[in-house]
Structures are given as C-alpha cells and as structure tokens.
C-alpha cells in the first residue's frame, strides 16, 4: 500500500495519531503537499462521506475520521503558508444572531471541510453585517446560515437582503439550514439553497459553486 493510501485508510479508521505520523512521513519523503491533501486526506474523507450516505457507517465514525483529517491538515498548513490550503470553494458559516446553537452548524462545517471547502466559521450569534462583510472581504462564494429556533429565522432574511442591498447577491450565494428551516422556508426568504442535513449541505454547496 502506498503512503498516501495508508493515510487514507488510517483516516477512515479514525486513527488521528497515525494520520499525523504518516502525513509527516509523506512530507519528509518529498511528496507534494497538494498530493498528500488530495490523494490521502480528501480521498479518505470522500470514502467516509460515501459510506455515511449509504448508512454503512454512522456519525461518530465520520467525526473520528474528521479529527484524523484535521490532524493531517495541520501538518500541511505551513507548506501552503502563502496561499493557504487549496480548496474547491470558500464558505462563510455561522449560527445567526440571537441563537447560540452550534452543533448542527459545526457538523455542516466539518463535512464541508472534509469535502475540500475552505470554511470561515464565524461561530454563533453572528450579526447579519458580519456574515456579509466577511464574505465580501474574504472573497467567499457562499454564506451558510444555521439556526435551531423559529424566532431567529428572520435574521437569515436580513443577511439575504443585505447582500442584495450591497449588490453581491449574484456573486455570493446563500444556503440555510437547521431544525425550523425547510425547503419551502428557504424559498420564501429568497435563499439560494437549503440543506436538510450536513451531508446534503455538501451536495447543495457543490451545486451552488457549480
């Protein structure tokens, strides 16, 4: 088994220490960082994502694999110092103002990162302006908003309206999710997409970015 295959396999087994060591070994052997990322870490996460979708493995196993992926990525980071870790798109993510729930948002962020996206996680209780300003400043393609309460869904509308007001609604797409959010509500408030769960959020963001 090649070193990159070993990284992918250890990642799938959630062995973060092994992934850490193997990634260092691959760096020492002179394998380009981008190759380690794509053919080791992301390749492993792709398999995990597929198995999760098919209900062959479950959330805790996905999260153990994600930790292993982060362990490897941390080793690669300095090698990408200037331009940052290459990604397939940039997403600004957060729980909207007035809400402090972040487990759902965190799971979405972990899955997106595992699929190769660059995630700027603003945390929870995020004001509408912060979503928009960060997305514009960082050149993000997507803003992802999460909430668990019906009372805070109007905050999602505010972000979408602010984007329109500032003329960024055609360049920065929005996706919303969380317990009180539905496909219908997403449409009603003018969001570009809706994610039912973390796995579908990945598919939807990929669609948005094209």
């Amino acid at each position, binding site marked *: 088994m090649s070193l990159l295959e070993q990284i992918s396999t250890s990642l799938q087994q*959630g062995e973060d220490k092994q992934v850490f060591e193997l990634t260092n070994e691959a760096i020492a052997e002179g394998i380009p960082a981008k190759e380690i990322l794509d053919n080791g870490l992301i390749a492993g996460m792709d398999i995990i994502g597929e198995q999760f979708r098919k*209900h062959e493995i*479950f*959330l*805790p*196993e996905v*999260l*153990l694999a*994600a*930790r292993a992926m*982060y*362990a490897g990525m941390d080793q690669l980071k300095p090698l990408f110092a200037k331009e940052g870790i290459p990604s397939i798109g940039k997403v600004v993510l957060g729980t909207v103002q*007035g*809400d*402090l*729930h*972040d*487990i759902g948002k*965190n*799971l979405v962020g*972990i899955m997106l990162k595992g699929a190769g996206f660059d995630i700027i996680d603003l945390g929870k209780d995020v004001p509408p302006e912060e979503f928009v300003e960060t997305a514009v400043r960082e050149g993000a393609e997507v803003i992802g908003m999460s909430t668990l*309460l*019906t*009372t*805070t869904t109007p905050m999602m509308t505010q972000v979408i309206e602010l984007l329109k007001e500032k003329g960024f609604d055609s360049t920065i797409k929005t996706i919303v999710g969380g*317990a*009180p959010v*539905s496909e219908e509500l997403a449409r009603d408030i003018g969001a570009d997409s809706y994610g039912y769960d973390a796995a579908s959020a990945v598919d939807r963001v990929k669609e948005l970015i094209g």
Partner: protein
Amino acid sequence: MNTIVQFELSDILPRPEAVLQDQGVPGDRPVPDRIDAVFTQALDIFARSARPTGTISELTAEELTPIFRGEGENEADALLARIYHRADNLALFALTMGSEVSANIEKLFADNDFAAGSMLDSVASLAADKASEVFEARFFQDLSSRGLITPEHLVLGYSPGYCGWHISGQKKLFEYLEPDRIGISLNDSYLMTPLKSITGLLVSGRKEIHQCEPHFGYCSSCKHRSCQERLARLVS
C-alpha cells in the same frame, strides 16, 4: 411555593441505546468498539460536569391563564388551551444540566474531538429530557401522597415551543417562575442559557383530558414527534 430540586445523576443518565440512536447508530447492529469508547468518554465527562437542577411551582388555572397567553402568539387550536382548565393540579417547572456541560461540549469541538463533543451533546439533551420525566414522576408522587391522584390520573408535561404553545410563552413563564435563581437566563429570541435546559407545565388530570389526535395544522412543522410515546402512556 417555589421549590428547588437537585436531581440525582443516576435518575437522569440516559440509556446507552437511546444515546446511540440519537447519534444515528441503529440498535440492530453491533456497536463498534471505537464508538463505544466515545460513548464512555462522553458519559464520564457528563457525570463529572453536570449540575442538574430544577425549580417547580404549583399554580392555579387562573394564575396560568396570562402566562399561557404569553405574548399572544399561540396557535388558535393550541393543545394546552383545551386541557389546562380541565386539570386538577398544575405546576410550572424549569430545569437545567448546568453551564459546565455546554462549556465541555464547546471545548471538545474546539479541540477537534468532534465525536466526543457530539456524543456529549446527545447525552446532555437526553438527560435533560429524563429530568423532565423525573419532575412528572415527583409531581405524581407528591399529589398521590396528598390523596389527589386516582388510578385514572396521569401527569404529563407540556412545553412552550410545542403543540401550538408559542415559544414566546417563555417570557411570562420566566417572569412567574424566575428560573434565573437556578442559573437559567432567557434572551430576546427566547433562547435559554445554559442550552441544555427545559421549561414546561405539568398537568395532572384524568387521562382523557390529555387525549388528542395529533393532526393539528402545526403538527406538520413539528420535528419532534414525542406525542406518540406520550399518548401511549394514556392506555398503559
């Protein structure tokens, strides 16, 4: 009278199968060792950091009316509206697992220990649910010892945010019960901190008053269909 209760950990610890089910792990398959290890880790952190506390206060239907009306946002056919006037005894409660559990969940996520963080979140949510069942049982026993319960009686809890009782009902409930005395606060979006907290109304009455067909307009948007289990208790 407003009573403060410290829950026994052994009374509220959720069953492993319930936690794993909450994590999406089906009960009909063997649990992989590494998932089992994460569960044990989460349970251990919960046992060390939970401070399960509640407050409960009996009140009359007349006292409840303005609290239930809240900010005037309830659904016209809110379930409780047709129940509480027919009840024999009522009590408002609030309970929390404490802030340290939530801080630990956050810390685990910050340390990239996502599996343990998510598992601890499930453990704490289910423990909060169990604590509200403990309140139901205690209220039942208390009324029983006062001769206020017959074999036909059942105590069930109803919460703002469920069954047409709008979540903004939290405001008046907080004004009456003052759960800040046990460390629970409410923000402008009606969100309680610590997150693992529950409020509600305990309704004691003959079983038939709780009877309903869960086909209200608001049922379609409810993502937490615990009503079937609750209704099953009417026949048991």
